[in-house]
């Protein structure tokens, strides 16, 4: 009987030593016959990486986290002895950390070699696209609309409405652009998806192309993701060779060409209009809206700009039907939410759950407390522009409207945990400093305001004319919120104001 060993090739797994584990494995299994080492994607439980899974007789069990030195001992074990190993995890589907999740978009993540097309097909890959090419564009858009899918990049705009706009725009050329410039601190879901299940994104984009009449798509990928680049690059070539991309996709007579483009390290290029400028070869500077990209996007043509997770979700929606997806979630937030647990947590990683559970439930179920062992004090949800939430707000249900009502935002699902040693004035200052560092410089509230924000907070931290400077900071936040051109300047006051409102003692 053959044995298959799985060691993730994902960037995070590699960062914590997966390559060394794989190398140790390679030298170890050389003596065994019928052994195959698969570099799979990561399942997203980064706290268990490097993870090793062994599949024998149709049974797959895991060990982790490991280091290379652990490998010989594991290889020396007989199957019935595995459970005796202190890093033995059992079948991962049954591991509480996974069992409590509801994987839809990340259903396949970590199961196979991400570039193995056969594996993808074996797990219902490209069924959504095969289905879509037999539908009229309007029917595809209807299906997506009925699923209730909203943009996963953070703005949560209904995807079907956006697609409908592009579908109805009259133009000789339309585009699908995938925003893979995942820049929020503490987020990694896009990267994980691209490194673990690249064909799903390709499938989602091809469906989008068929749906709106775009025969050309671009993935705008941040340059800080070299592994994702490599995986996507190869996956695109293989999908094209297999007829899922190119001049005649799935023998439908419809064309969809996909190109992968690298960013140049600017956070602002995750903002969709700056992204489009950058994609056109210009400085990445935010455009005023209107016109919306759906009307005049890339090179002035109607363009769907969607986040990686949004497009990936479309593949399963088209495969399993809108109702299955819409059946999950709460309120107007349908389907599943991908949270990325980071910061000061013991069990960091990617958690996919239906919308509607509370933040506290998620933390209790998955985080395993802080890594430092100290009490949690503040949680920033939604990336660097998200609010800092005190414990009193942790019972807020994870849905867009409920979070907004509590003064927060879900954004791209980043969850960064801080313990009680955090200095919230320093965090507020960091928010302004981040804005100053990443502002495109176009609008004044952001360009000048963020710099003045740092200066005012420095004076507050130095206890200079505290009351006067807090009042000035409040006015500045008003100006930035209401007058900024895009969400970068407009949302920067969120962490600042929430820090002041919920942790006033740090500013006294």
């Amino acid at each position, binding site marked *: 009987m053959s044995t298959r060993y799985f060691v993730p090739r994902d960037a995070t797994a590699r960062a914590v030593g997966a390559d060394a584990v794989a190398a140790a494995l390679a030298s170890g299994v050389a003596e065994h016959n019928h052994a195959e080492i698969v570099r799979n994607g990561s399942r997203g439980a980064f706290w268990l990486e490097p993870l090793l899974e062994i599949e024998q007789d149709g049974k797959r069990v895991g060990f982790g986290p490991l280091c290379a030195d652990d490998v010989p001992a594991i290889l020396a074990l007989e199957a019935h002895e595995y459970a005796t190993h202190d890093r033995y995890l059992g079948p991962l589907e049954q591991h509480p950390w996974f069992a409590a999740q509801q994987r839809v978009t990340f259903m396949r993540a970590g199961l196979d070699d991400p570039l193995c097309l056969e594996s993808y097909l074996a797990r219902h890959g490209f069924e959504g696209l095969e289905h879509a090419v037999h539908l009229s564009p309007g029917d595809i858009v209807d299906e997506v609309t009925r699923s209730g899918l909203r943009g996963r990049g953070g703005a949560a705009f209904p995807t079907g409405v956006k697609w409908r706009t592009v579908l109805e725009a009259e133009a000789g050329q339309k585009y699908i652009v995938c925003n893979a410039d995942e820049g929020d601190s503490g987020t990694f879901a896009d990267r994980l998806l691209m490194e673990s299940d690249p064909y799903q994104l390709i499938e989602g984009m091809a469906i989008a192309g068929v749906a709106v009449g775009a025969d050309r798509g671009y993935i705008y990928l941040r340059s800080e993701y070299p592994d994702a680049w490599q995986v996507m690059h190869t996956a695109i070539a293989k999908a094209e060779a297999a007829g899922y991309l190119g001049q005649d996709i799935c023998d439908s007579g419809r064309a969809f060409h996909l190109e992968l483009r690298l960013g140049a390290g600017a956070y602002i290029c995750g903002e969709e209009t700056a992204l489009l400028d950058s994609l056109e070869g210009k400085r990445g500077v935010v455009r*005023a809206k209107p016109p919306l990209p759906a009307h005049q996007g890339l090179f002035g043509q109607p363009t769907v700009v969607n986040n990686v997770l949004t497009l990936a979700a479309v593949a399963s929606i088209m495969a399993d039907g809108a109702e299955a997806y819409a059946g999950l979630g709460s309120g107007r937030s349908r389907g599943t939410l991908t949270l990325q647990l980071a910061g000061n947590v013991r069990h960091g990683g990617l958690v996919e759950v239906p919308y509607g559970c509370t933040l506290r439930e998620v933390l209790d179920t998955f985080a395993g407390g802080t890594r430092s062992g100290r009490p949690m004090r503040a949680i920033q949800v939604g990336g660097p522009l998200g609010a800092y939430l005190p414990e009193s707000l942790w019972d807020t249900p994870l849905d867009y409207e409920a979070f907004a009502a509590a003064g927060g935002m879900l954004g791209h699902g980043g969850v960064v945990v801080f313990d009680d040693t955090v200095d919230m004035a320093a965090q507020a200052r960091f928010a302004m400093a981040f804005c100053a560092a*990443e502002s495109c*410089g176009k*609008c*004044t509230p952001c360009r000048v*305001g963020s710099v003045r924000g740092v200066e005012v907070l420095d004076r507050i931290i130095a206890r200079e004319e505290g009351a006067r400077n807090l009042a000035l900071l409040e*006015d500045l936040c008003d*100006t930035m919120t209401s007058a900024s*051109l895009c969400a970068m300047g407009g949302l920067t006051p969120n962490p600042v104001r929430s820090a002041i409102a919920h942790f006033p003692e740090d500013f006294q």
Partner: protein
Amino acid sequence: MVQYYEPQRDYGTPAASGGEAVALQIDGIDIEVPAGTSVMRAAALAGVKVPKLCASDSLEAFGSCRVCLVEIAGRRGYPASCTTPVEPGMQVQTQTPALAKLRRGVMELYISDHPLDCLTCPTNGDCELQDTAGEVGLRAVRYGFAGANHLEAEKDQSNPYFTFDPAKCIVCSRCVRACEEVQGTFALTIEGRGFDSRVSVGATDFLGSDCVSCGACVNACPTATLTENSIIEQGIPEHTAITTCAYCGVGCGFRAELRGNTVVRMTPWKDGRANEGHACVKGRFAFGYATHPDRITTPMVRDSIEQPWREVSWDEALQFAARRFREIQERHGRNSIGAISSSRCTNEEVYLVQKLVRAGFGNNNIDTCARVCHSPTGFGLKTTLGESAGTQAFTSVDSADVIMVIGANPTEAHPVFGSRLKRRLREGARLIVIDPREIELVDAPHIRADYHLPVNPGANVAVLNAMAHVIATEALHDAGFIAQRCDRESFASWLEFVSAEHNAPEALAAATGVDPESLRAAARLYASGGNAAIYYGLGVTEHSQGSTAVMAIANLAMLTGNIGREGVGVNPMRGQNNVQGSCDMGSFPHELPGYRHLSDAATRGQFEAAWQVQLDPEPGMRIPNMFDAALDGQFRGLYCQGEDVAQSDPNTQHIEAALSALECLVVQDIFLNETAKFAHVFLPGASFLEKDGTFTNAERRISRVRKVMPPLSGKADWEVTQAFAAALGCDMDYAHPSQIMDEIASLTPTFSGVSYALLDEKGSLQWPCNESAPEGTPTMHRDEFVRGKGYFAITDFVATDERANRRFPLLLTTGRILSQYNVGAQTRRTDNSAWHSEDTLEIHPHDAQERGVSEGDWVGIQSRVGNTVLRATLTTRVKPGVVYTTFHHPVSGANVVTTDNSDWATNCPEYKVTAVQVSRVSAPSAWQARQQQFDRKQRDLLERARTDA
């Protein structure tokens, strides 16, 4: 009435074109505007002022300054009014407490990084930042000034006309956008991100950058960051007057901005139809020549050119000239004197000079400098279409799909139109360039010609015939148009001619030097690419077959039905400000005003009745005839107004000999030009700033020239001509140029509706302007050709005699450069020489290497008639076998080399083809040495006049 200075009105965003009317309410005021209009513009149209800093109606909305925010009922937040389009029923509030607080908040941020030196700032009182701070009621900057700032940023003073002071920059990007959207040069960018974002020229400084100094950025700047040096030195203007540029044939409308009688700034007029608020380095900045110390403001006389000048009264000078002219006529006959009028002068002045000749001299020896530039246009277009003028308005190019540029270099010679053309090309119009040289349009930022056909100098007709051959033989022509609009017989014989195998691109390839496949492709594009428009210049006319080429162009347009509507047509790019007008005004020896032949007794009768004289029905001498006759002793007196024939006409040594042979040369000019050095009487001229009148540009647009300062000599040119006529006993009695225009209108059918009152009302008028077109005619030949049916002239290609051979293996062609203007009399007396201080010879590296010539070497250029010496510039812009130079500096002697060859129909000189040899030399040519000596002597004789006085 004095127009006190105030900034030109700005509606914030460009006008929306032609959408349905949308009704909305702004601050309770009902307004209807076209769909696509911004809320900001709608507010401005409703008379509601919304603060703004980054918006300007010459630029697309940008949305960066965030002071134009408004509240809209039913919408969240505070949308920027500049980027929000109107919608039916919208209710907009522009002033609320919340908006006031936001605007103050934004202004406070701006001012926290801005020097507080308003009282000593050059634009104090003319600054949008200052105004906006006032409008929003900013009272304090609570951030203080100790934080990060750009107050120590260094100035860039490299451009002679304006200063860049980045300490005052608010990073609104208006300059960058103006450079891109208006001018199309892309010299400016924003460098850095966030707070480090700064305007940058992408080079060490402005002068060393791609900047063409058009001034669009300076216009656009809302602060003192980009400011004219004249404003820095002299202060902001106190009053203004609208006038017309006196440089090229684009005829830009300008607002002269003055302090007292001193022009402190020329600002492109936004309502000027030819330029719509844009300008170039010449019109915008190079006006200082008007008050240059070289200006001669006192009349002078002398008996011979060996004598010093004598400053005299106007009366004495005019009597002196009149007496000599009458004596010459008594001794040598009525036809022994004549005049040359100037395309630089006003219509009224040109009209008076021809009237003086016909009515006062009693002959028709009147010619004008159009002889040496666009006379073939007049002939060729009259013959084929029926009117001696371009067919379109400049705005027509905005709807062209295919643009063919032949023998013209708009970005250098007609820069403001060049920018409009480039804008259309950036919008996607296709481009065909036919030129021996790789002009800028062939490959410019965001522009690339679909086809560049590098024709051999002298082979335009062959290329045009070959294009017509392709269109005709591939049946790409517009048979319906031809059947309906064109003369059947001429078309039939032309079709047979052009379809003949000898006109195929392959058969002509040796002559044209153009790849037949590219030529075929270009022809197909021209014929089938939608609206196709032809723009041509002196590279078409200044050939032995200049008139033939013009007719071949008209044939192409008729063949493809590309005439008679917007977006198409045949468009001569006129070289000088009033070439069109001077031709219109009867400046040719055979034509009365309005292109009516002298031999027509009825027309002649009208003028005879109006002028109370008998007119000679025989055409007079053309310019080259005058010079030949001077050398023969039959022509002895010449009144030359505002043209420097000694520098600008071909075969300089021939011209110099002719001028030297004259008994009395009367020169009227603002400077002692090269021709004046041969003169006996010098009558001081007036610049365009010193007189009233009109100019007519390349699109037949008649625009007012307005006196903004008194003539330095006491007389405007029309007054001088009138006084000269009086001295000759030919009485004219005009109190104002408007009366001259009234006379022109009464005698010229195409001008009969023109009056100063109507010009003042409409801003400008495109002739024909008469009963059937009371507001003028933007597009000609709409329903039928002026001549009735369009005429296809046979355009056989005949190679010029001026061929390259072993002795003269290279072909020299000439052209203009952006910063200098023609003979350079004006621009050389401005800081424009910072860009072009000498003419050089462009030579292909291959030809240079063969001759051992390196960059910057002195090279002798020898033709059959003369030689001169220039420095060499090695460049692949010219192809092997072709060399190129400009002719802006007298000492260059470009025309010492050019020959007497000329157009068969009009005698327009063949400037564009001269066979030459080029070789390395170490000293100036003998002519140049003589020229310098003569120049020194004449300057000395002038100096003595001044010291004696």
